[in-house]
């Protein structure tokens, strides 16, 4: 069973068990096909908030291909190729499905949480560089 949510009405509908279809339509209008894919990622618990004792945090999203991507918590960045292409280079998308999934998770306050050591968090932040290279 899917749960639907809309950014435009999030104050009221945040904790509702189901959200009217028109909110889903608004979401799809604004975000395009990413909306449905992002909701899917949230439903499948694919978004994990990783934090360390330092207080620094980063998101990791398990993509549909089985690869994990890193999304920064403080600003708009995802390590996936779609972000580099559609958002940065072509500029025809506001975000990729992973970033949208992260924002949806924040709004819905449902997210896997994972605590790691400071050094492990460094590796998560750095690891995406090697992911890109491969």
């Amino acid at each position: 069973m899917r749960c639907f949510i809309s950014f435009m009405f999030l104050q009221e509908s945040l904790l509702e068990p189901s959200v009217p279809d028109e909110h889903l339509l608004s979401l799809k209008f604004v975000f395009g096909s990413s909306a449905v894919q992002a909701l899917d990622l949230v439903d499948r618990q694919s978004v994990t908030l990783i934090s360390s004792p330092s207080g620094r945090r980063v998101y990791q999203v398990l993509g549909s291909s089985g690869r994990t991507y890193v999304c920064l918590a403080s600003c708009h960045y995802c390590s996936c190729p779609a972000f580099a292409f559609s958002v940065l280079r072509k500029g025809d998308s506001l975000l990729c499905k992973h970033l949208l999934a992260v924002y949806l998770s924040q709004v819905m306050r449902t997210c896997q949480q994972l605590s790691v050591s400071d050094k492990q968090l460094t590796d998560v932040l750095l690891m995406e560089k090697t992911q890109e290279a491969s």
Partner: protein
Amino acid sequence: MAETLRRVLNSGGAAGPGEENTAEAEPPLLLLGGHGSGKTALLFAAALEAAGEGRGPVLFLTRRPLQSLPRRIGAALEPLRLQIRFQYPPSTRELLRLLCSAHETRGPAPSLLLLDGLEEYLTEDPGSQETAYLAALLLDTAAHFSHRVGSGRGCGLIVALQTQEEGDSATAPQLALLQRYFPAQCWLQPDAPGPGQHCLRACLEPGGLGARAEWRVTFRQDGEMTVTPWPTQAGDTSLHKGSSSGGQP
């Protein structure tokens, strides 16, 4: 850090406490200009300004040690200089490692993060993703420091990037990409030099959070830097200390 830079420029380049501290975090700022346009000197002035506020140390990142610390007008600045911590990551990879591991170090969090010479870390023909990753990590590191600083303005971020004189088609998309991550920009352009002087025009675009403003920055041969508001009357070259800094309407 547009407001910090504005304070530096408004106070005529002298460091020291001045106006009220704003309570909110300032957007990251990109300092742009050609070779020798005074970016390093302005970064250092901002470092002294922040150090003078006493909210925490300043972290100054650059590829090579500064040949000489820019001279400043004002009172004895030695204690302030000690609050500025220099680090010299020799490669892009080392810079990334430094930013990714910034949370591992304990102690007081910096109140200002400065990077001089971003172009030196982007020379290995980076694609959009690498450039965005570096910009985003700079923001994320400053955000983490802000979180540790706690309430108030948090940690500011100013990054200096050397631009080409001619419009270089290869760097233009890179600059557009960086501007997405750095909403505030300050442009330094050469101005007609006086005798024994090197003059620049500094134009601050705070990215929607304040008025656009301009100043004239002058470097004397002995390295001393003075800053005055840019004359708002066309063709008026006299210096008006009290003139408005509102720039164009």
